[in-house]
């Protein structure tokens, strides 16, 4: 059943429940962060509307910088602002930032320990028709490997807003991952969000598997958990919104309880959430793991739904992985 303590949306399983993109949550969170702290500034590389930086640019024009199509300059200008008392948020598509400007982020933001927040948008294959060039599926891995960097992957628009606002209060470099498509709003304002603390969203009476997810695909994990529960397979679903620092203690504790793990993400299984969880388990409590995610391949053009089906990132695929991992116990 849904964990009552996390106060999820009661209409969670209603097909007509509200949907909103996590990028919209970013836009709202950025404006709120800007209202709270005048040190917050925003930079964008010619995608102000689609990254939802537009509202901030209208509200605080003197604190907004249009950088043009130049992600490398954007990252390092932000680095200069960040060591001069400002809290810059930089926005572009994740394939370009942190894709194209990886080295500027590494040297001038992360190693330089500048207080910059990197918002990577249009992440994952659900970006759709634009094709694989615009579908970031390696960004978590790139950013997770970087010392000084923290990594948040919010699961819906409400959590995206919370993560965006929380980033302003954390000193140092933070990577925030957002998606383009509208996805179910399944948390509420009252759902706890504390960086570094994974939360149990679903818990069956006798769980046989721990499902760990991040981002909007976590919703499909809960749907899968419910359907599995109805068929007598109990599980725990953990919202792992912070990939770094990873909540290793909770993951080990729950893995011990369940004895098997499935990770779920709209990202390559190498180096992303799956990689992070496998590392943590190898260290603390070795257990069989199945990985739902991109299997070392690029995406392609199509609608979000068609792509999630083609690349096996739906609730049915999570159920398959659960059954498989239980057999390995």
């Amino acid at each position: 059943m849904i964990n009552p303590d996390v106060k999820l949306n009661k209409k969670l399983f209603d097909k007509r429940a509200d949907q909103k993109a996590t990028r919209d949550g970013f836009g709202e969170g950025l404006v709120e962060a800007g209202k709270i702290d005048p040190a917050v500034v925003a930079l964008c590389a010619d995608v102000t509307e689609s990254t939802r930086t537009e509202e901030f640019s209208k509200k605080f024009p003197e604190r907004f910088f249009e950088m043009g199509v130049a992600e490398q300059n954007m990252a390092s200008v932000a680095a200069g602002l960040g060591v001069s008392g400002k809290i810059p948020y930089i926005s572009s598509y994740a394939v370009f930032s942190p894709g194209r400007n990886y080295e500027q982020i590494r040297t001038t933001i992360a190693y330089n320990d500048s207080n910059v927040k990197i918002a990577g948008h249009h992440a994952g294959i659900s970006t759709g028709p634009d094709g694989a060039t615009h579908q970031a599926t390696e960004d978590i891995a790139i950013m997770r490997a970087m010392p000084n960097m923290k990594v948040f992957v919010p699961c819906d628009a409400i959590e995206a807003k919370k993560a965006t606002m929380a980033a302003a209060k954390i000193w140092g470099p933070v990577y925030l991952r957002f998606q383009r498509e509208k996805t179910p709003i399944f948390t509420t304002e009252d759902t706890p969000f504390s960086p570094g603390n994974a939360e149990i969203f679903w818990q069956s009476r006798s769980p046989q598997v721990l499902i760990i997810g991040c981002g909007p695909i976590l919703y499909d994990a809960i749907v899968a958990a419910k359907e599995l529960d109805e068929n007598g397979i109990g599980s725990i679903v953990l919202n792992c919104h912070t990939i770094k620092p990873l909540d290793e203690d909770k993951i080990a504790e729950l893995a011990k309880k369940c004895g098997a793990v499935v990770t779920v993400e709209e990202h390559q299984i190498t180096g992303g959430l799956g990689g992070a969880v496998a590392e943590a388990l190898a260290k603390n409590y070795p257990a069989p793991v199945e990985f739902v995610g991109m299997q070392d391949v690029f995406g392609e053009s199509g609608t979000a739904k068609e792509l999630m089906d083609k690349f096996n990132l739906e609730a049915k695929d999570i159920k398959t992985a659960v059954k498989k991992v239980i057999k390995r116990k």
Partner: protein
Amino acid sequence: MEALHDKKLKFLEEMANKIRREIIEMLVEAGSGHSAGPLGMADIFSAMYFHVLKHDPQKPNWKDRDRLVLSNGHICPVLYASLANAGYFSVEKLATLRKINSRLQGHPHRGSLPGIETTSGPLGSGLSQAIGMALAARLDNKKYRVYCLASDGEHQEGNFWEAVMFAGKQGSNLNNLTVIVDRNNIQIDGFTEKIMPLESLKDKYEAFKWHVLDVNGHDIEEFVAAVNEARAIYERPTVIIAHTIPGKGVSFMEKDFRWHGKPPTQEEGERALKELRTLGGEIKSEHE
């Protein structure tokens, strides 16, 4: 900035010579590092840290200080020697360059040593960071100025021109920014105009709406006058293209690109120091 009297000028020239000697000593001790660039920029660093910059080595994080961003981090021996002589840390520490547990990293790292404004080494992103600092000054109504010291070779990086273009767009909003280009015409593989031509650098900056000045980078008086002119320009940021001789002061290193990325041996170091102490053989008694 105070006026540049003859006495001060002599002090700055002697300081540049001291910095050159310390660069040689550091490099011999380290056994690796870059020789030509640091020697070529010693006069400009002496002028910056001992005349131009508004700074306080006792308060390295003073909010109103002028910022010096070294974009081409590989010439850091000249930065370290300047900071030590200015009083940011003790001159004895220079001997730890590139050694284990040293604060003097092979390329500068902000936070490792007081006085370092930014981490650099990978080329082409210093100007972007200087722009960020200059924009922060505007947002906070601060009067400090930002100086970015860059190499000519790093103008081959795309990031550099993204930054030049952005600063040109900002116009008077970035008149608190001055770039100083070390135009020494060499890079690791050879002469810049052979590896990847940069000329006309002046025309390129002007096309991006910058104010451009050309100076002899070893004439401290001329350089300081250019810095003063940059301060007086309202409409746009200024670039000072400083023509320098790589390896300046050590005859067997001057203008030879092979000295870009290697240190002198013990023996070469001794020859270099003797030359520097006698000002290239111009004076008989070694002055110390």
